[in-house]
């Protein structure tokens, strides 16, 4: 049966003085989705202004899709979200934020 995966995502553009907000999205689905799939779905079909890294190395090794899920850093390609549940997503390293969920790897891992 189809249910909602609810995701609240921290949005921020550091170059504007507006500070951050949390924006909610709902995805109707009947199966578990990885965070990476869910973000792609949101970017494609809900909101083209959402910045996220969509690279996928295919074997859970590169950490390019690392993101903070309910306060804990996880790999987006290998973490499943379940229909009927609500989640919060934030950048894994907000101290080097570029925009939304995208942070600067060159500064985080010099």
């Amino acid at each position, binding site marked *: 049966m189809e249910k909602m995966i609810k995701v609240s995502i921290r949005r921020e*553009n*550091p*170059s504007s003085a507006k500070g951050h907000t949390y924006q909610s999205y709902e995805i109707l689905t009947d*199966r*578990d*989705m*990885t965070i990476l*799939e869910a973000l792609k779905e949101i*970017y*494609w079909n809900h909101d*083209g*202004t*959402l*910045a*996220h*890294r*969509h*690279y*996928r*190395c*295919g*074997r*859970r*090794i*590169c*950490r*390019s899709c690392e993101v903070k899920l309910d306060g804990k850093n996880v790999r987006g390609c*290998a973490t*499943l979200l379940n229909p009927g549940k609500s989640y919060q997503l934030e950048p894994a390293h907000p101290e080097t934020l*570029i*925009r*939304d969920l*995208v942070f*600067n*790897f*060159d500064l985080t891992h010099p």
Partner: protein
Amino acid sequence: MKNDHFLETDVLIVGGGGAGMRAAIEAASLGCRVIVANKGAVGRSGTTPMAMEAYQAVCSPEDSEEIHFQDTVAGGRELGDENLIRVLVKEARQRAQDLEKYGVRFKKKADGSFDPMHHPGQSFPRTLFIQGGGYGMLAGLVREAKKNSKIKIMSDVLVTKILLDQDRVPCGAIYLDLKDGKVKAIQCPAVILATGGYEELWAFNDASLTACGDGVFLAYEAGAKLVDLEMLLFYPTVVIHPPSVKGTLFQYELVINPEILGGRLLNGRDEPFIAGMPLRDALIRAICQEVKMGRGTKHGGVFIDLTNSSLSRENLTGALEKWQPNQFHYLKDMGVDLREVMVEVAPHAHFTMGGVAVDECARTSVGGLYAAGEVAGNLHGANRVSGNALAETQVFGVRAGVSAATWVNRKKNPGVKEFSAAVGKAEALLDDLQSARNHFLRPWQIRKRLQEIMWQWCGIEREAEGLRRGLAELEKLERESFRSQANRRENNLLPSGQYGAYPQELQDAWETWIMITLGKLVCTSALFREETRGHHIRLDYPAPAEEAVHTFLSKGREPERGKVNKEDLAQWKK
């Protein structure tokens, strides 16, 4: 122009994967200042981190460079340039030893010697197993490059143009800095392209979303010769179901090897359909045949079956841990335990053998412009033997670095140039693409359409009528999506050159726009090759032509046939 919007260097390397990083290390060791410009996060994006563990180099006493050479020529269906192949086989081993110096680890036997795998197409086991795969290899290269203060590494920059001076050689480049969304310039007398392939043109591919052929496009626009663009290698066994792990590659070479995983490939009726250890092109044709005859799986592929492995469960687990630990655990945690269930796989676009034409020194047909790795075009021919791709990045990365350094030392620096006009031009183009957002099609929708057109008309099986249809549909797509943008500028309310931090949708639009150009070139090239050879299957010309010849394309010219470089034996005897 603001200071931080203008950089100066000796060698600009576009792409920070295996070939680009190796070229950077080499050029810097020869005294050059180097900038590596990478579209994503360095070390965590592009093609190399997705590469399998395989690095082909001769390592056993009964094997020889000569046999590696012959295997590669035959595997490439006689279309690979023999002067390039000779260089590859001669230097692959030495480059593997360089990697070890950089801290990259290979699987070794107890006595410390390499422990190679035997892959199809090899007369002797020759596939060195890199711990951590392409990701592990690249991590070592990045660490090494960071030790040298002459190398500046930039993540998240999209190079949009190579600038040429009055002699038609590079004097700089323009890029969009994704970190702040500003268009900026680099002055440099030499450019090395190391951007990987263009698999993203096809609907089913297992490559990076960013493998859009940036380097092939930049070279084409700079007037360089392209070669054999139609030569696209499909990897036969990429997961198509379930969706959460779709696109994960699992090496069939390991599955069907009785000494490694002892598994089978089965069609949708659970019947075996191949014998022995077929090369990739042969296996793809076999899978297509099964699907076409209605014997495919539910989602249009075949099964990898390890549930009946000839190994005991304990030994199978051990073998999976040894040979494919990341894939095995990743799939298992996503609910696909290969010891318990069969998994559906199908051929995906995996590697582009065509690209920028180069010589054995990684020189393109434009002075001061070099290409190394997958972006280059005439090494593998019509089929690539497993393990030669990563070896190629290292061997030709070094050669590109040496060539660029030689060029820089000979040539006077271009002197400070005025780049504002070029920046303005790039901004005008990006403004047009940016306004696609106001258009009825989003960039990803245009990209999807492009990918469907390419898969349908220029996919695994091709024929003249379909290729012409594909070309016409791409023309139409271009007219309906981007070309009309120029007239829409007045509707674009955003100020010119203001794209904001991480303009992801603009990057999408740019990539899609260059891919439409490349798609048309690939179809043109595929139409021109009236034969079946390796991975280029023409239903209307089912046999190979008597002689293998290259297809050359360059801007403003009709496609041309060109000689495949056959080896001058005397040259190598010394």
